[in-house]
């Protein structure tokens, strides 16, 4: 029982991490209808920035994080302006391919900067944990969950209440009409990418806490956030957190019990199970739990 609870707690924490990453995808998709495959590479840059400042230069961790988040957001906005802006009138798949190209190029540079060894983040939580009735809960896991909840709340308010958020939703719904109504599409996309960049930097930091560290393979781990986003629905914020948590829990439970019961499916099946879930969701309910359906127009 304790084993199950521990797995569940880890799963929820890891799921919060996937949710944060997934939100980066959702924000850009909500604003422009494009899936930003470069998000994992941006995440690596953000985590690297935090690591370099906090570990190499001894900057106070919250300050290092703040700086990294801001820098990554600014960098993302620049990338959007230079690379994505010309793609506005082109089909979303072409824009998504551009982000794949960006991912390839950025991943190489980030990996080069990270170096061959695992880098630590210099976070204050480390391996500290608290024992609640036999269940071990890491401080870093609590932080992940809290961060995810705060971010989701803020984002929801942003999209529901602020003018920029409203403009973004309008632009995603019908770009031409939005432009005709005076919505500054370009600037909006820049803002969306900046928010996604900030989220990526935050998520990147969390990927490396608790002594795990970041290395050149970290970016590929971030792709596991995609099944969560698909499950939740690409344009749904609450979907991102629900989807992320489901993926995280599924992964954790498969890892804990998989060796005994699912040995036939091979080792490391817990790494594949998010993608199996992805296939299942896409075949049964492509728009996810909370996503909005595309109307099929001839």
């Amino acid at each position: 029982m304790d084993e199950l609870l521990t797995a569940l707690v880890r799963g929820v924490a890891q799921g919060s991490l996937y949710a944060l990453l997934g939100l980066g995808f959702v924000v850009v998709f909500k604003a422009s209808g494009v899936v930003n495959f470069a998000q994992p590479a941006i995440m690596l840059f953000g985590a690297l920035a935090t690591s370099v400042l906090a570990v190499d230069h001894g900057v106070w961790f919250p300050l290092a994080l703040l700086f990294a988040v801001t820098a990554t957001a600014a960098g993302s906005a620049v990338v959007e302006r230079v690379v994505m802006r010309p793609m506005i009138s082109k089909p979303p798949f072409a824009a998504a391919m551009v982000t794949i190209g960006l991912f390839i190029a950025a991943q190489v540079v980030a990996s080069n900067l990270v170096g061959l060894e695992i880098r630590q983040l210099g976070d204050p939580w480390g391996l500290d944990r608290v024992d609640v009735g036999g269940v071990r809960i890491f401080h870093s896991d609590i932080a992940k969950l809290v961060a995810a909840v705060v971010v989701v709340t803020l984002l929801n308010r942003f999209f529901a209440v602020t003018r920029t958020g409203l403009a973004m939703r309008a632009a995603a719904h019908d770009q031409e009409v939005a432009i005709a109504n005076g919505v500054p599409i370009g600037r909006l996309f820049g803002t969306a990418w900046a928010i996604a960049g900030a989220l990526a930097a935050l998520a990147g930091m969390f990927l490396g806490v608790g002594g795990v560290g970041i290395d050149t393979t970290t970016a590929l781990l971030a792709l596991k956030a995609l099944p969560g986003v698909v499950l939740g629905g690409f344009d749904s914020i609450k979907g991102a957190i629900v989807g992320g948590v489901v993926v995280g829990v599924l992964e954790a439970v498969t890892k804990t019990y998989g060796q005994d019961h699912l040995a036939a499916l091979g080792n490391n099946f817990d790494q594949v199970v998010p993608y199996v879930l992805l296939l299942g969701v896409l075949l049964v309910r492509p728009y996810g739990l909370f996503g909005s359906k595309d109307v099929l127009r001839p």
Partner: protein
Amino acid sequence: MTSSVLRHRALLTVGSVAAVALPFLSGATSTSLYTRILIGAVGAIGLNIVTGLTGQVSLGHSFFLAVGAYTAAVLGGTAGRTVIGHDLDMTIWLPAAFVAAAVVGAVVSPIAFRLRGLYLAILTLGMVFVGLHLFREWTSVTGGAGIGRPAAPAVLLGRPLAEDLAVGAVTATSPTQLYLLCLAVFALATLAFVNLRHSAFGRAMVAVRDRDVAAEAMGIASRRVKVVAFALAAGCAGVAGALSAAETGYIEPGSYDVLLSVEYLAIILIGGVGTAAGPLLGAVFVVGMPRIVEWAQPLLPFVAAGTRDDGILTRFELQTFLYGVLIVVFLIAQPDGVSGALTRARDSARTWPFSRLLDHN
């Protein structure tokens, strides 16, 4: 015949002669490169059919490449301590690679019935990851992750292509023979593609790409079109995978990942989506990139020849970086690819000096 048809045919004849003569004038390494370019082009023709003509976005090409390579390996390879193999001839394993991959492609194709665009792309992405896991675990066929297995050797009608062949005064080395074989396969595939594109079925494919709901309203069985498109694409990928494996001699399951799929997508995007020349032009760029970087490396002071210690970037990193940049640049600036650029250049030259007046861009 009109003069343009004559000109077209003359060009094709000259091109074919040059292509056949090429390996006899180049060294072994260059010939291997040209062979790999041709193999890449064959695989890209398949992707061109499903994504370029029929508009079904597929990031799953590497999965079909693997199916072809492993079908060939099991049929044509030698049985080892951990892996199975039946030592069959190339005339068996090459078509078998096509058929096996095509069947898998047809089986997988129903996923395209309900999904479009980005969702289909993501689903095929998931397929690659699941496939990777499958191949890693199926050690009797693949040898397992990090270990791999020998590929099916090129043994044509009982004669291994690894031996030199002397025909009169001309000696064809092993790389040359493999090149000529791949050239033949490429020519066949291109011919099939051009015929397909100009046929009624090809037009149906394009109709499905542009507006599949409207195509169905017109009486086109879009489901059948999608199944055939996927099957053909997968078949081409299977052949390319089998040939590629024969060229390198050894295959490891981890290499059939998303990056390989993206490479093929880059080939058709850079070459020109839906065009006949696109796959070859794109393959020259994408497959030839490592060679270009290798050649340029002494000229670039910040690139290391070997490990990272000598410079800021390794050759491999620079090549991957350029490759990503190339995708981005081509998509933004030149969506019709190299093929489109060449067509525009040709039209411009043909109408000179009036090309400026007639420029529609």
